[in-house]
């Protein structure tokens, strides 16, 4: 899995000055060493000049080390933390995809099962009708046949649950895609603190998802999640215009 983090942005506040300070210190140390060596060399002290260069260079390294100990670990730690957060975000995306895939499988399996059940019920109903036509000897037998066939139509009606469930799952998939996009945006922003302000907020995105809400229950769930106490009038189940 590749990390979607961009590293080219401005470092978080406070860390940008440290490398510059370190570089300045090293540059001064090297310049001092070079100047001293040049003066000594001009006076004819070749060995002494070499020793001065070596000594001052070591001093520069030492200064760099000291400054590095003071300032170096923080940017690295922050960067690692940012990478880790980006990785986590990427893993969340894999997780939401898993949820969507699972939703599709539920829809497929319930759709297939519902079709088989509808076919079976329809066939059973037809057979009960045929049996009803032949059974006229005893009242008891006729009642029994009626009783067998009676629940079939209601059961056929109840199978609409599959379509309703399918649409609820499709809605969840759309929501998770929005969350995915948000995570991508966040991961991209990890290297640029100034851009964090430009990341769209969840509330707006979920409000957009409301456009795809088809059920009152979904809208009420959304309102509850957003902390809005709003009970929506869904209208009657049957309305003739």
């Amino acid at each position, binding site marked *: 899995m590749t990390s979607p983090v961009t590293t080219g942005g401005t470092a978080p506040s406070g860390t940008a000055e440290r490398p510059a300070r370190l570089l300045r210190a090293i540059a001064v140390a090297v310049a001092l060493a070079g100047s001293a060596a040049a003066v000594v060399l001009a006076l004819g002290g070749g060995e002494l000049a070499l020793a001065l260069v070596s000594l001052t260079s070591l001093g520069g390294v030492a200064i760099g080390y000291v400054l590095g100990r003071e300032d170096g670990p923080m940017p690295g730690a922050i960067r690692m933390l940012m990478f880790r957060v980006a990785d986590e975000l990427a893993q969340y995306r894999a997780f939401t995809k898993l949820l969507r895939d699972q939703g599709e499988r539920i829809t497929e399996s319930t*759709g297939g099962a*519902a*079709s088989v059940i*509808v*076919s079976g*019920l*329809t066939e059973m*109903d037809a057979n009960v009708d045929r049996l009803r036509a032949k059974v006229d000897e005893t009242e008891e037998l006729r009642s029994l046949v009626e009783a067998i066939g009676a629940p079939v*139509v*209601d059961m*056929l*009606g*109840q*199978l*609409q*649950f*599959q*379509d*309703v469930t*399918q*649409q609820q799952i499709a809605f969840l998939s759309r929501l998770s895609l929005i969350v995915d996009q948000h995570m991508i945006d966040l991961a991209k922003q990890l290297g640029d603190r100034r851009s964090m302000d430009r990341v769209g907020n969840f509330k707006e995105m979920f409000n957009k998802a409301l456009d795809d*809400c*088809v*059920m*009152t229950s979904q*809208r009420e769930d959304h309102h509850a999640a957003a902390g809005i106490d709003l009970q929506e*009038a*869904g*209208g009657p*189940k*049957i*309305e*003739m*215009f």
Partner: protein
Amino acid sequence: MPSIVFIVDDSATILMSMEAILHKAGFTVDKAASGEEAVTKLQGGLKPNMIITDIHMPGMSGIDLIRKVRTMPGIQFIPILVVTTESQQAKRDEARAAKATGWLVKPVQPDDLLKVVKQILPNG
């Protein structure tokens, strides 16, 4: 001669279950799995006594189908019943403006469905 009810829905379960319920009640049923397929059948000469359509379908929506039917000579005045999971008032108003005949929210009890269909097609 039994009335023809034309059901339009992208859900195979809905198509099959409604067909079974209406067929048992004595209606002849024709089906389409999309708005486009419905239009093709209607343009091909299908003359139902009533259309039952879903709203949310891939491609042509139920509302668009109603608008289209209302422009088709010969069938523009047939009753169109919307059966959908949608319950938003704005959508209902949209369906009403498109000249839908009525609105039922899924899941619909078979008795309720038959009551409404028989109200629209009293002669069966």
